[in-house]
């Protein structure tokens, strides 16, 4: 354990804790309203939204898991870069419509919109449950990020407590209780304010890392020369298979299509003050993608630095696998005070999205399960209370996830979440442009998509392999299961919509008008 690094880490952690509580008073609103607690009053301007979404989408997963793949498997992990390039034209072109209709109708979640657009509570329930289930492993992923950072500092995770015995993951539990309390107290304002600190730290660490480490290692030429020549770029297609290039493209495309269907992304977008803010952010958010690309290269730098064979890191690699590559690289390359800063950036980088994700799940539970099925007469302040309590339950669920599940390749959990959440695309995205799809047909498509997606991922031997080859005329096309299952979903939704509309002729039950989308 390094006292300097730990002191700086703890000090920064305390700073953001204070900010989390102070945030309740920032741009003060009535926190007993769901749109105030859960959407920050829809008042965030371009700059705050930029920090909020940046902190929300580029998470601890960015710091840990993406370089871990480059470290372990080479070029294929770099798909995160095209993924975060391709997401923004979609945000730009499509999401101002969602923002507008949500503002006009008071929608807080994507499922609220589906409920209004198609007049079908069952479909909205499916969208809401998908959102909650897909987000749980994503929150767990943030915890893994925090765990790796805490362990990298050399802090003991299993702490004996007098009267109770040894408590596993105690530092993590403490951090999470603190997070839960200020999220409960301040709502979306807390991660918005903390995101300012997180991103400032992130940029400092990234810039320092990509200047200092390549110099120490003798330049990028030497770094890439040390990498495995077979995986520096992707393997070429063969006569029997399109190979890793198809996997790469479909991983990028599937992740892109999934990202802004996630509840935390929708929450971040809907909290902005206008559709112009949404557009401007689509144009300026790629700055984070650049940081992401540089962070990804840390994985290759860790290979060149040879951290895996250094005895002082053996324990960390044993516990966390390749996810320990970046922490080990930081400890190896940085002076100890800066190790404290870097690890604080990772841990705080986990807090911001974890808070937003739990708020987004809480919004879904409150609006689309509690209000729809349990207590339709719930008052506005009752809604806020239910949401606050739900945010606590969601976090407890995520804790259970990481304590009980193997986390060596956390990125696979996130890719599985993508397979699930992408199945809401026809209802949400197509729904923004047409009400002619039949809600029961959309539900059938959703079932087909979820069923085939889960079957493909688990069919590959419960290893949570998410890239599954599709056989086309004897030619294998490796394809991210999210993409192939989405195609099936769309086909089923379209065919049965056509059939139901032709046979039943039920008029659409649409609570929105075209003017609401402008």
């Amino acid at each position, binding site marked *: 354990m390094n006292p300097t690094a730990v002191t700086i880490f703890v000090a920064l952690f305390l700073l953001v804790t204070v900010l989390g509580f102070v945030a309740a008073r920032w741009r003060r609103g009535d926190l007993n309203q769901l749109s105030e607690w859960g959407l920050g009053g829809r008042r965030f301007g371009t700059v705050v939204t930029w920090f909020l979404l940046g902190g929300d989408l580029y998470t601890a997963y960015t710091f840990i898991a993406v370089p871990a793949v480059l470290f372990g498997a080479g*070029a294929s992990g*770099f798909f995160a*870069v*095209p993924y*975060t*390039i*391709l997401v*923004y*034209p979609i945000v*730009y*072109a499509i999401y101002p419509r969602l923002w507008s209709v949500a503002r006009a109708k008071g929608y807080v979640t994507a499922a609220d919109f589906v409920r209004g657009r198609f007049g079908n509570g069952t479909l909205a329930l499916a969208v809401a449950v998908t959102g909650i289930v897909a987000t749980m492993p994503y929150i767990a992923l943030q915890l893994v990020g925090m765990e790796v950072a805490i362990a990298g500092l050399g802090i003991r995770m299993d702490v004996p407590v007098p009267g109770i015995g040894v408590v596993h993951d105690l530092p993590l539990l403490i951090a999470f209780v603190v997070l839960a309390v200020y999220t409960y107290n301040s709502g979306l304002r807390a991660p918005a304010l903390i995101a300012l600190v997180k991103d400032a730290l992130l940029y400092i660490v990234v810039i320092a890392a990509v200047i200092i480490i390549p110099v120490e290692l003798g*330049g*990028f*030429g*030497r*770094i*890439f020369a040390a990498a495995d020549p077979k995986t*520096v*770029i*992707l393997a*070429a*297609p063969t006569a029997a298979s399109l190979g890793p*290039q*198809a996997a*790469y*493209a479909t991983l*990028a*495309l599937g992740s892109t299509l999934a990202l802004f269907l996630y509840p935390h992304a929708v929450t971040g977008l809907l909290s902005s003050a206008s559709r*112009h803010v949404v*557009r*401007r952010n*689509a*144009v*300026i958010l*790629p700055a984070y*993608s*650049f940081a992401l*690309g540089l962070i990804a*290269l840390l994985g290759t730098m860790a290979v060149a630095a040879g951290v895996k064979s250094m005895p002082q890191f053996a324990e960390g690699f044993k516990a966390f696998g390749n996810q320990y590559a970046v922490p080990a690289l930081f400890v190896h390359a940085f002076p100890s005070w800066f190790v404290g800063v870097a690890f604080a950036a990772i841990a705080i980088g986990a807090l911001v999205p974890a808070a937003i994700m739990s708020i987004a799940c809480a919004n879904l539970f409150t609006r689309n399960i509690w209000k729809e099925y349990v207590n339709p007469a719930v008052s506005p302040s009752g809604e806020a209370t239910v949401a606050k309590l739900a945010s606590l339950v969601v976090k407890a669920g995520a804790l259970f996830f990481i304590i009980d599940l193997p986390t060596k390749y956390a990125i696979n959990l996130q890719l599985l979440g993508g397979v699930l959440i992408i199945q809401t695309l026809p209802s949400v995205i197509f729904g923004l*442009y047409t009400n002619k799809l039949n809600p029961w047909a959309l539900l059938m498509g959703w079932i087909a998509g979820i069923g085939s997606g889960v079957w493909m991922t688990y069919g590959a031997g419960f290893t949570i392999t998410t890239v599954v080859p599709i056989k086309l005329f004897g030619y294998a096309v490796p394809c991210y299961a999210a993409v192939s299952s989405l195609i099936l979903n769309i086909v089923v939704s379209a065919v049965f919509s056509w059939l139901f509309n032709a046979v039943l002729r039920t008029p659409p039950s649409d609570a929105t008008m*075209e003017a609401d989308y*402008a």
Partner: protein
Amino acid sequence: MDTPKRRIFRPIHLLLLIPYVAMLWVGSYNRLAPDLAGIPFFYWYQMLWIVLGVAVMLPVYFADERDEASRK
């Protein structure tokens, strides 16, 4: 009062498709040379597209904002 209906689609929006062609066609950039300061082509080319992706959104953004302002 009688504002013309806003068009959802305008031809300039086609610019937004360019990054998809460039990035999903993996074969076009899956190579080592030419490198940039030791970074293989595969990596720096995709990083470059972050900037180019913004570059194709900018004209669309200004056209849309001008269009909406003229309808107010």
